[in-house]
């Protein structure tokens, strides 16, 4: 098993108890971002931006022990 640090932002926060705080999730070895989204029950159209350790990633990205994952709905600003 691996443990990853997950942060949900924008309206995805409703899916994470303890809003604003990263949650530690345990996933099977070899799990991908896609598995993580399934686990959290996040629809794909709401997970527009996914960062793994600060790098833009997609659903096929394989996760490792200790990874930092950030998931955002569509966002912009400036």
């Amino acid at each position, binding site marked *: 098993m691996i443990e990853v640090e997950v942060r949900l932002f924008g309206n995805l926060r409703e899916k994470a108890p303890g809003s604003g705080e990263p949650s530690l999730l345990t996933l099977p070895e070899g799990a991908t971002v896609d598995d993580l989204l399934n686990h959290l029950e996040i629809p794909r159209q709401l997970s527009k931006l996914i960062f793994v350790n600060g790098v833009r990633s997609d659903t096929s990205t394989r996760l490792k022990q200790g990874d930092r994952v950030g998931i955002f709905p569509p966002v*912009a600003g400036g």
Partner: protein
Amino acid sequence: MDKILRVNMSDGSVKVEEVPEKYQLLGGRALTSSIVCDEVVPTCHPLGPYNKLVLAPGMVTGTSAPSSGRLSVGGKSPLTGGIKEANAGGIPGQKLARLGYKAVIIEGQPERGKLFLLKISTGGAELVPADDLAGKGMYEINKTLWERYGEGTGIIGIGPAGEMMMRNAGISCNDPENGPGRYAGRGGLGAVMGSKGLKAIVVDDTGAAGVPVANKELFDQGRKKLAKALTTHDVTSKTLPSYGTAALINVMNEAGGLPTRNFSSGRFEGADKISGETIAEVTTSRGGKMGHPCHPGCIIKCSNIINKADGSYHVAPLEYESDWALGANCGIDNLDDIAELNRLCNDIGLDTIEAGCTLAVAMEAGLAEFGDSKKAIELLKEVGKGSPLGRILGNGTAFTAAAFGVTRCPTVKEQAMPAYEPRAVKGIGVTYATSTMGADHTSGYTIAPEILNVGGDVDPADPNKAELARAFQATTMFIDSAGYCLFIAFAILDIAEGFEGMVESVNGVLGTNWTTDDVTKLGLTWLKKERLFNEAAGLTAQDDRMPEFMKYESLPPHDTKWDVDDRVLDAVHSYTVEE
């Protein structure tokens, strides 16, 4: 729009002129920059009698086109030494347009120490002595002028920083509640206004005829297509009104590109405390407002009204750049103190990006500890007082870095960088380096495809971004000239029909037949003029460079340096335009 107002501050004359043919199809930035290129000696002292301040509403500003209330302000910048255009929302731009003014040109210089106010209405324009307004902050100015000239009038003004001709002085435009938070902030144009002895411009459009539209059917078709894109796209219809622009704090932090403690890290441990999500939560719980429009007719509504803990008004808006500059970049995570710093900037008349970067450099110099928000507030108050220290800080980041021997100085052409770390996001660095304006994210917002997956999807680490930066700078030039808020780009870069709608709405107003392909062509033509002004002012390719420290200091968390080849930077403006 059929006239230009020319105000000579040397002899006090106010003249209405016909619009020359060469300016008839221009507006906003294309017009301010064209007039500056035609009338301002590039080598002039920016605060002397030969510089001019030019104000121009965009091509469709004042019409019913959505989110189109921008006012462009131009001149030679006392900060960069090159051409400057800064644009703002708020209510004065639409009013100026409806009164039929395509541009207002302020020239000459009165006797030192004299202060005036320019009043513009359907009855004409006049200069009124305004010595009684000397030294007043923008909150008091706006309040006094609404009492004097009526609620709802548009007010363009400068705070004490502009009067003291500081290089970080901006020009305020009032919002619908008369707050002074909508700034043509960047590049020190407030100092140019101050050098003209002009404290404020009051714009009353009661009884105005409105903006003539050449082809109403086409205009309506275009504005509807654009409105549909804005109300359909998730960013412009959901994220921006719900969380404001500060929704980006967490995004840039996760991407490792949120400049922290004077550009020494790309991550801030206090990011979530100052994020858009937290701002929305706090604002709602205190009876403030998210989804606030900065001018009537804005359907994006990214602005907000921030209240204090006791529920009373504090500042509007608190947006991403200000939140970052006065927050993360100073190591400050106290939202109320950030709001207070922002309020002080609005009152004194300062650009928040430049002010935040200046404070961070001052912290690096040891004037305060990073994170000491109370001391930061004290330092900013010195600027308003005009003390010797305040005058150093009020002249901006590069001036302060020079005064205190700080080499980590995040500026290009002496203008401070906005809230995106170029070592983590290379394309925005290419924009910073090559913009005619100095370090300026709004002149070519490559963050959209590099980080946000809007308008494309490119790798932020790829250093070959010349074409991307050029394309964004050209398109932005067109949007800035049309008078649309730059944020329409988020929708129209993804929704082709919205892009067509923007062009059709402009064609409808002007009677032109421009196509979507012409947007880039026209943008490049107008950009070229700005480049030529800068060359004539003495700026060279060596000014299109990043600060040296970014080439030898690695930025955590990605531990990357600025590694973009100078040839990429020089390629951005290697193009020819049709005359």
